[in-house]
């Protein structure tokens, strides 16, 4: 469970048996070719995979540099790549005979996906979500509840993703006999980083063949946003062996460098190695090892830690890390909407923003591939606020009056 010195499994003793069972089950499915087939089949019939790669002719022409292609994870059922991991873990959960699933969620996409999976597999489901995230991602909460999940607003700590993970661990140490913890990103204790990356590798497996077919060559640079790291790991795995393909992880730069202003672990210099939430990686923490507050317009990137394999690849200079500020994200989103009719999620817009910045400096025969990890519909409240949209505000006010405010 280690990548260089990062990773591992740091959990209370009470979970040892559960984790061993999970590791064994994951080994089983990894070596059972019929599992991947079943998984692919499920993703095809339920989620519409393979997702396409779209060529952005307008944006490429406008920037005048590299040719830009986008892997369209936003077209998945529930609107993001999160469903890949969740359906994989759903199949695994069935194999190990558990009847209840729990999950943390930041942007709400993972919770939405998990609630969907639970409905489809017939599992009981409880979703932990930081109270701050509940407030900023209420539409997802609404759908989770209607899909039959119980959503718990976590009031501890910073009330965001990391606190939801803590709360999941607390639930898990209590209910592991019937409960599987569907961790949503490629972080946390082994085997989660490996397992989540494994299910998400479906993105890269598809994308490699697709881009070769459509662009006629492998991409020169691949961009993905990195919160925990699952969509980035998912796509990057398709190109790890292609040394000429540069991999770029795009972190949440928030307001810019400086402790508490962002959620960038590697691109900025405010993080250091630590052990928390079950694994060893770079964390945004102070010298005592207490975690810093993080800040980002994208709830799904607003996380203190990062996938351990990505850290290792960064140290080996196989993956380059860049931070993108909230302001740059909003501009990139606006440009994508108007130029190509795409609405990337705020998370994915980080990858777009960085790609847009670099594309114009690249030559026209170079190829960029961006992971559109999710769609921006879910972000309407956040985006409307970021754009300070007056029509939206008066709509909400009218609605509130109608509700007797």
């Amino acid at each position, binding site marked *: 469970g280690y990548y260089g010195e990062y990773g591992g499994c740091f959990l*209370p*003793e009470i*979970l*040892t048996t559960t984790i061993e069972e999970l590791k064994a089950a994951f080994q089983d499915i990894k070596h059972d070719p019929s599992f991947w087939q079943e998984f692919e089949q499920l993703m095809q019939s339920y989620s519409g995979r393979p997702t396409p790669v779209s060529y952005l002719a307008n944006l490429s022409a406008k920037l005048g540099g590299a040719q830009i292609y986008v892997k369209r994870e936003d077209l998945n059922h529930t609107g993001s790549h999160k469903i890949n991991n969740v359906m994989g873990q759903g199949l695994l959960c069935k194999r190990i005979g558990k009847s209840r699933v729990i999950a943390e969620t930041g942007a709400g996409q993972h919770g939405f996906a998990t609630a969907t999976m639970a409905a489809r597999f017939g599992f009981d489901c409880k979703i932990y979500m930081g109270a701050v995230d509940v407030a900023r991602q209420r539409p997802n909460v609404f759908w989770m509840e209607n899909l039959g999940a119980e959503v718990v607003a976590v009031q501890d700590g910073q009330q965001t993703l990391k606190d939801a993970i*803590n709360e999941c661990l*607390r639930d898990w*140490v209590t209910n592991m006999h019937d409960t599987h913890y569907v961790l949503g990103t490629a972080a946390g204790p082994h085997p989660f980083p490996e397992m989540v990356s494994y299910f998400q590798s479906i993105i890269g497996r598809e994308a490699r063949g697709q881009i070769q077919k459509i662009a006629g060559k492998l991409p020169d640079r691949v961009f993905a946003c990195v919160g925990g790291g699952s969509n980035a790991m998912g796509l990057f795995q398709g190109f790890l062996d292609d040394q000429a393909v540069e991999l770029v992880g795009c972190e949440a730069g928030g307001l810019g460098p400086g402790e508490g202003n962002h959620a960038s672990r590697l691109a900025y210099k405010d993080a250091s190695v630590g052990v*928390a939430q079950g694994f060893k990686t770079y964390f945004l923490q102070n*010298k005592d*090892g207490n975690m810093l507050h993080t800040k980002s317009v994208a709830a799904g990137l607003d996380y203190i830690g990062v996938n351990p394999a990505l850290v290792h690849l960064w140290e080996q200079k196989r993956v380059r890390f860049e931070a993108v500020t909230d302001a740059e994200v909003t501009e990139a989103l606006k440009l994508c909407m108007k130029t190509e009719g795409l609405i990337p999620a705020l998370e994915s817009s980080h990858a777009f923003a960085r790609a847009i910045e670099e594309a114009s400096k690249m030559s026209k025969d170079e190829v960029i591939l961006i992971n559109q990890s999710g769609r921006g519909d879910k972000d309407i409240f956040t985006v409307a606020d970021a754009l300070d949209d007056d029509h939206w505000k008066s709509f909400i006010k009218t609605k509130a009056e109608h509700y007797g405010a």
Partner: protein
Amino acid sequence: MALNEYIASRKQNKDLLLMTHVVCGYPSFEANLKELEIMAEAGVDFVELQFPFSEPSADGPLFVKANQIAVESGVTVEQCFEFMAKVSQRFDFKVLMMGYYNTVFKMGHEAFVDALKAAGGCGFIVPDLPLEEAKPLHDYAKTQDIAPIVLMTPTNTDERLQTIAEAADGFVYVVARRGVTGSKTEMDAEVGEFLDKCRTLSPVPIGVGFGVSAKEDLEFLAKHADMGIIGTAALKAWERGEEKALRDFFASLGLL
């Protein structure tokens, strides 16, 4: 080892030793001292001083809140060690560090153990550091006569309990049930059987925690273990009415 002898000597006078818990700096170091004075009066044998951490994922709601407020109010690791030094000088009971591994990791293993020793601590309980990851820290601690306390839990296989037993030092912290700290544990025959198994396997005395809160619990534990561990129940009493309520609580246990 020193800790074994201490336990043996304390056990000569009573059936069941007692370990209690405070969260350093919550609600304040001054309050901690008042709590500890009452605990000392009640004759506790060990106290865990929890070093507050921002991600206390193995703790229940009350300790989560305590950790969070302590961290937010600026309690540092340095202050915790200073406090530990003061406490171990002033009181008879032995003091252990309780906390999460990141606190240890950020200091470095040796620096941590050295500081702990300098502050008069006798061991540490780090619930998120599994045996597989613990060897370097434990090895160094043992060279410094600091006891790394390991945990046995009801979900462990017999084989795993055996492995834990082999790593045990000082005493074994037996977790009475699944879950986080702070909820009530039903002390029934099943728990008794499990404790007996742990006691049999363990080469050192066993202390039992998680949900120990009443006189009957201690009476039950006296039959199956060497030490009771009271955490949340004491803090709950303090929250209810500070010194008065905490005294009442220990009185209800028959200790005051």
